[in-house]
């Protein structure tokens, strides 16, 4: 909570307490159960604890930006696991692959939220009382306050008072009168800026609203990724997703029964100038049905322009190449034909992929390697791609034969080859074989293992399909939080006191003020008020 700071001249009883900052937190632990509970609550809701929890929250967020996250990029996670065999189980146990769902991360923010509630409740009570309280009486010695003005006006008390009141419009006013006729004294207490604390409370309550919105979204929503090669179709069922992050309360039945076909994919590669080679304006044409018996509709989707089907959004988030290869056995029988997705590794679209042929005989075959859209080679750089556009596509693969390990039931990534049961295929000279395939070319593998052909190159699109219910709640929450924040930072609570004393035909006006916000200063306001009182009519 942003508490009004420093010296504050506010009477102690009124000071809202975020727990008890001073003293109480250091008090020795009492033994009675009720006392213990109260002590624990005070500890938890003290500002120091809140600060500590804020720091912990910041620190605890860091690992999620360093270690790949299941919820962000599952493919990177599985690659990382393969590269770090010893660390991976330790990280797994610590929840480092899904930091933001982990027990320890949740513990921190739940404690923080409890601390927040422990702050909001008492402060709301105090605020409620302060709202109904009258502005405090005029101090006896106004001149002792930092900002003080004294003026004499040649008017009677009533006229002078009217002027002061004019100048204090917008303030909550309390008036008291004393003294005999001819020497009457009128005192005005004025206060304004009550909304600062309201803003403060609104800000903190809004954080809870945001949390509710995010929680509902992540419990009932889902986010899935799927790679679809152009010309292929997708039906919105669990099994069709490459990766799926469903909320804990999300059920498969909640998937809307739509289906679509990716008709084509269009991309312009900039041909000249500085962005030469970069992909621009990529879009995919989607032909979809909202449900099996509804009309076929068509829409082009682009980055920043998703397709919305019944509350589910389909986003185009990436694209790449899917070389179509055919593998034949030594006898010429086709054992595999189809597009294989190669994932882009950088902006040149040098892509990495794996081809697994479990039906090959006499041995299963596996290929692993790179796809170069526009192949080039120099001795210095080795193979590379000149352009991301497929002008001279080449597949460059290492070839393996043996057991792919698909039959033992353990799940395998389609983007990696398990090499325990495999051996490199060797050339006649005993060196490992490398398969380099240009478009339309066929390479024959030694030892009657078969042939492999690059028929053509298709494209794939990477789609994200997601449903984020209650996102408007989170948006509302964070917008209210901003509103509250502005109030709590920029509304200045202040008090002005005026004492008017009748003397002969004159009135002495004493003005003083107190700005209760941090380091505020009322000099200008008091000056303008004084001018208004003195001004000739």
């Amino acid at each position, binding site marked *: 909570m942003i508490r009004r700071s420093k010296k504050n001249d506010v009477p102690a009883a009124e000071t809202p307490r975020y727990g008890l900052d001073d003293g109480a937190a250091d008090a020795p632990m009492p033994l009675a159960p009720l006392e213990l509970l109260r002590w624990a609550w005070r500890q938890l809701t003290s500002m120091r604890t809140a600060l500590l929890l804020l720091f912990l929250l910041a620190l605890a967020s860091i690992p999620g930006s360093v270690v790949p996250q299941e919820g962000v990029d599952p493919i990177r996670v599985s690659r990382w696991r393969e590269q770090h065999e010893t660390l991976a189980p330790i990280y797994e146990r610590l929840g480092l692959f899904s930091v933001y769902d982990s027990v320890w991360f949740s513990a921190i923010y739940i404690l923080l939220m409890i601390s927040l509630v422990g702050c909001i409740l008492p402060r709301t009570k105090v605020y409620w009382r302060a709202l109904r309280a009258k502005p405090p009486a005029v101090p006896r010695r106004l001149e002792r306050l*930092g900002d003080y003005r004294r003026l004499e006006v040649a008017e009677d008390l009533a006229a002078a008072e009217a002027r002061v009141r004019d100048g204090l419009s917008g303030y909550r006013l309390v008036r008291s009168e004393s003294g005999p006729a001819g020497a009457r004294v009128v005192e005005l207490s004025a206060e304004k800026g009550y909304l600062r604390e309201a803003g403060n409370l609104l800000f903190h309550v809004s954080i809870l609203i945001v949390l509710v919105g995010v929680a509902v979204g992540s419990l009932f929503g889902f986010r899935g990724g799927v790679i679809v090669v152009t010309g292929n179709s997708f039906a919105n069922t669990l099994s069709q997703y490459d990766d799926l992050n469903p909320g804990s309360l999300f059920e498969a039945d909640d998937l809307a029964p739509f289906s679509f076909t990716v008709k084509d994919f269009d991309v312009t590669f900039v041909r000249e100038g500085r962005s030469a080679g970069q992909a621009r304006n990529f879009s995919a044409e989607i032909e979809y049905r909202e449900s099996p018996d509804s009309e076929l509709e068509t829409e082009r989707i682009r980055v920043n322009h998703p397709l919305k089907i019944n509350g589910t959004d389909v986003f185009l988030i990436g694209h790449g190449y899917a070389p179509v290869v055919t593998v034949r056995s030594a006898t010429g029988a086709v054992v595999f034909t189809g597009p294989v997705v190669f994932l882009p590794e*950088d902006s040149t679209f040098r892509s990495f992929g794996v081809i697994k042929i479990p039906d090959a005989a006499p041995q299963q075959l596996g290929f692993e390697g790179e796809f170069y859209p526009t192949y080039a080679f120099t001795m210095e750089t080795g193979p590379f791609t000149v352009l991301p556009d497929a002008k001279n596509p080449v597949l460059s693969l290492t070839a393996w034969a043996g057991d792919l390990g698909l039959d033992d039931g353990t799940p395998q990534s389609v983007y990696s080859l398990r090499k325990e049961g495999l051996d490199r295929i060797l050339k006649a000279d005993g060196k490992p074989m490398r398969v380099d395939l240009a478009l339309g070319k066929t390479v024959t593998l030694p030892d009657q293992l078969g042939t492999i052909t690059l028929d053509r190159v298709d494209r794939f699109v990477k789609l994200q399909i997601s449903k984020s219910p209650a996102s408007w709640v989170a948006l509302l929450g*964070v917008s209210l939080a901003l509103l509250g924040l502005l109030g709590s930072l920029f509304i200045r609570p202040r008090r002005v006191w005026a004492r008017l004393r009748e003397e002969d035909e004159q009135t002495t006006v004493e003005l003083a003020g107190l700005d209760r916000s941090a380091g505020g200063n009322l000099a200008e306001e008091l000056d303008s008020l004084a001018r208004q009182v003195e001004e000739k009519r």
Partner: protein
Amino acid sequence: MNNNLQEILSNWATMAAAAGYFVALLVHLAEWASRREAAVTPTEQPVLAGVGAAATDGADAVDGETRGPRGSSDAVDGSGADTLPPAVAKASRLFRLGVRVTWVAAVAHLAAVVLRSLAAEPVRVPWGNMYEFTLTSTLVVALGYLLVERRSDVSWLAPVVNGFNIITLMAAMLLLYTPVTDLQDALRSPWLVIHVFAAIIATGAFTLGGMASALYILKENRAEKLGGLSPRSYLARVPSLERLDRFAYRAHAFAFPVWTFAALITGPIWAQAAWGRYWGWDPKEVWAFITWVVYAAYLHARATAGWKGKAAAIIALIGLATLWFNFVGINFFFGSGSQHSYA
């Protein structure tokens, strides 16, 4: 090749701006030297003599920030000229000169930003990569300082702002420079204008606030160690700890809501539209969140017994470190893993 011309002009304008900041820095150093001289000559208020607190006017002197330097420098040039030691009068003149040079530099800087935007085909906002982000946020720092300077006495900030801008502009030119290109598909959205601009404004304001917090720490440390400051030192010219703290607070209080708007409102809205999730713990998002949490801690710490003052200032600097790390570090270290890896 018209666009190339604009780009070259933009680079020249950037160099001119950096040169301008450098000249301004020299002028302010000369000013500092003459203030040291003035400090040796005994005056009533050796420490704050000059533009700031030389003119005492009753209650207002308590809070120098509400008084315009214009008013006080008039006093120096006019009635005060006879009474002030010559070294002080010279220092004030040098200060005004330094401010004018910074204005010239800032105008060149603005031209650099505008030309950068015109150089693109089609014309776009100049916030498409790290170089452009740095170019614009240093402009925000300079303009922020100059605008505050019109309303209150921040002469102590002059060498810091000019020095910071020279270093940052040169670093941007040498390390981050990217030729003008058109925008990537992902950046083609009206949210680019709103989201990135808000982030730039907040970055500039946080940086200004961080300068005050850094000076706060330096000044307090030095005063503690030496049991007082030599009136000749630069830190003696820096305003009181209380005023430094207040300046830092105001800058942060301005920047924090803007950052909230950039990182937690427009960011998620755009992310929802572009990536299908409003918050996905992308490294950039993680660090934006960390920055937000640290600055929230700063605002709380400033109001907590035992955390006021130096501890709060340290938190502010940690916040600034996370902010700049998020901007530079993330792109360099986690570039491939972040959906924000533009440039």
